């Protein structure tokens, strides 16, 4: 009658989630730590997209960054150092409907968890992976991390780090099935929000390398970039990170980059003395492993029993 759907009432959102629904314990990061801003943005995105807290899992490894699940009001899994990704993939494998966030660090993901990082990119399971890249081991008090610049003094290398820093962007771009690679900075909440939101909107494994300040162990390390945004290269494109003009204008140094273009993405990521932010690479068409791994998850009891009987019969003599 009157063109109304008979079950129209079902469309009404019976629950509205406020920011408070995504808040867990009080955040215990140091004052001024970049991690606070990342947490806030994640909670805002959950609120803005009205994600059910009980259908959401925040997964992490070990490190300052990996404390994030404790501060969320969702389900959480604070795992082992380096092992957030196998856990996250396992959670997703048979329950693809769950919303998965991963919080990890430069040590957690790019050092001890490096093998899993490479393979998780290949699995391309739908999850939002935030690497809190502060160029140091924070939790364990200032040891060299894979992204510590050469020559920088740490407690394990008091004369300065001896190896060239690892470039997580070029590495990720080189992995089969890569589908979403972006970089942002913790101190620009607008770009941070827009980037993480784009990552979350992507169906597949989205890796966001977040340049993150650790004022305790690397005081003023990114001060130059904060003081002079011209030192940052803002990537723009209609298919890139949508950033309002008034915010984009603050970056005098911009480059239009089509995120479908892998060759350019690699050039941008590998350029020396450059800090690009924005979407480096995006391919929405890469298949997701959970579409394979979840096959048969809803199979009924009768069918299961019949399958088991058949298996027994195969060995009957």
């Amino acid at each position: 009658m009157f063109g109304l759907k008979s079950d129209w009432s079902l469309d009404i959102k019976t629950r509205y989630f406020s920011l408070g629904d995504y808040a867990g314990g009080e955040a215990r990061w140091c004052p001024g730590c970049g991690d606070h801003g990342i947490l806030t943005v994640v909670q805002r995105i959950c609120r803005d997209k009205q994600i059910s807290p009980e259908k959401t899992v925040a997964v992490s490894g070990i490190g300052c960054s990996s404390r994030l699940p404790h501060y969320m009001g969702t389900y959480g899994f604070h795992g082992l150092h380096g092992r957030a990704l196998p856990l996250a993939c396992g959670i997703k494998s048979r329950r693809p409907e769950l919303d998965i966030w991963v919080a990890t660090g430069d040590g957690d993901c790019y050092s001890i968890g490096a093998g899993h990082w490479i393979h998780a990119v290949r699995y391309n399971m739908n999850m939002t992976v935030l690497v809190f890249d502060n160029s140091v081991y924070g939790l364990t008090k200032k040891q060299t991390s894979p992204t510590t610049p050469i020559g920088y003094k740490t407690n394990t290398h008091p004369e300065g780090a001896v190896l060239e820093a690892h470039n997580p962007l070029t590495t990720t771009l080189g992995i089969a099935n890569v589908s979403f690679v972006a970089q942002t900075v913790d101190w620009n909440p607008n770009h941070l929000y827009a980037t993480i939101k784009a990552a979350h909107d992507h169906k597949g494994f989205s890796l966001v390398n977040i340049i993150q300040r650790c004022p305790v162990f690397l005081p003023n390390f990114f001060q130059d970039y904060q003081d002079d945004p011209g030192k940052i290269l803002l990537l723009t494109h209609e298919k890139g990170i949508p950033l309002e003009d008034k915010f984009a204008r603050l970056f005098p140094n911009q480059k239009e980059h089509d995120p479908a273009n892998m060759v350019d993405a690699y050039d941008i990521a590998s350029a020396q003395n450059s800090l690009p932010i924005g979407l480096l690479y995006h391919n929405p068409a890469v298949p997701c492993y959970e579409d394979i791994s979840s096959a048969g998850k809803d199979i009924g009891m009768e069918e299961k029993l019949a399958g088991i009987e058949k298996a027994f019969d195969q060995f009957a003599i």
Partner: protein
Amino acid sequence: MGNPIPRKQINEHIVEIVSDSGEGAQKAGQTFGNISAKMGNGVWTVEIIPAEIKPPARSPAGASGIRIRVGSQYITNMGDAADIVVALNEQVLYSRIATHAYKKGTVILLESKWLTDPNPKIVEQYKTALQEFRDNGLIVHEIQMEKECLKYTPKPRLGKNMFVLGMICNIYDRDVKKAYHEIENTFIHKGVKVIELNQQLFQAGYDFAENNLEFHYNIPPWQTEDSKNKLIVTNGNQALGLGIMASGMDMVAMYPITPATSASHYLAEVYHTVGGFVHQAEDEIAAVGFAIGSSFAGKTACTITSGPGLALKTEFLALAVMAEIPLVVCLVQRGGPSTGLPTKVEQGDLLAALYGEPGDAPKIVIAAATIEECLHFVIMARKLAEAFRSPVILLTDANLATGVQPYPRPEAKAEWLASPIDQSNWDKDMPAYNWDEKTGLSARPIVGQVDGQYVLTGLAHTNRSKVAYDRESNQRGCEMRSRKLATLCSTLKPPKINGEAEGDLLVVGWGSTLGAIEEAISKLQAEGYRVSSIHLRFLSPLEPGLKAIFAKFTNVLTIEINYSDKADAPFITPDNRRYSQLATILRAQTLVDIDCWSNVHGQPMQPGLIYEELLSRLNQGAE
């Protein structure tokens, strides 16, 4: 068909077929085993696996084949020395002789084509070996197998195994109709021509043995017509796979490692029919992490591995204990330490399974003693894992993994399957670890349950899963997790004693040695010795009542396939002697002065060797 030749009735025989790999020896042996099981005999088959991956032809390292033990009783192990051996070349026999697989009087049916080989070196090797074998008491019959097969096929290397099958089927009076049927099933996808050719070759071997060999046997059945219809024949890894399916396990995450992998090979073929999924992870750490993640999300998960894989999984196992995540770990043991003896038998991972993790990590550890138990224990393990919110390690070994045996076909039961995940609302006031003070048990919230949100952590935590570094919280958490084991123990019965409840000697075993130990014990009991045995299935918690059982025996001895110092070795004293693994635990738990007899030869325990050892101990005691 009436058989004119006289047959000697025997109780059991051990047959081996050995060759270079790729000559179909295993197929022939399996078929012989299946026919025998169908005729109502007890059967145990075990594959002989080459020591090297690509060994040269006609080399001792290349010995490949199969051993089949057939008897008029239920057969539980591979036995001692072989009675009849069919060998397709003489060189492969050397490696079998080196492992004491044969005795004086073992009959060898040897392919003799090498005697006329164009390569004089081969002819020489053949002649030398023949002489050596005969000098050592083996009875060698030379047979021109290839020449016989050439009458039917230009490519005799491929069909010779059916000729061999025909010979042994005639020697042991196997049902020819059943053999034809098995051959048809084997080659069903290759068409009528192939089936017929193989049946011809079988018949040729059968007739050859009938007309040319002077030894023919009869091994009467032990099974009734009725029960033998409901048997299945599998190896231990296939049994694990069947158990995984029958338990309703949702997912297996694994990384390939011998001798565990074939369980996953099997599952990869059939798991989808019950909606399951095999995930081959990038390494063992990822495999167990993947399984734990899936279990956290409410799905039942399992990981299958061997010792080196277990070592990599320890940190995650500790997490699963700490955060109380149900998880089944199938641990198919091989020889260690390190990469050790990948294809060989050892029970060397008991202590690693029990105590391998950092800190206190109490978990359930059980061991299957038979191939049938491999199947049923997975079902039990899944239930225990969920009921006790705990990882469960199920130990098996290479002996069970590769041994093949008929056993009763189970019927799939709905109650074996995991129940669907609970997605009803969680009571907001109920903690994520609502520990029952007495039992330590608690229900767990599953992702998706409204108001169940908690953060699982491997850090010390309160019952609400809040990180807590205070002294009381960690003490309490450890107590609650440990209490679950005591709770489980309180539901277990003391182990069944095989024999009298008191006597001169009690043998204690665990895992795949069951058949060999009990066979040796029966023989000694029949000879009047006061010896009994028990076999443990639960290693953590230990089965109750052990101390009381031990008290009734003058001596208690564990028999295990892992390392122990010999009591009389240089510098060894009772204080510094390293005991075998179960003995170490039993001594600590019961304060009984338990002795051990163990080795790391990489081989299954043989009933004959156990018999000899026990006999000498019992007679010593009598002096």
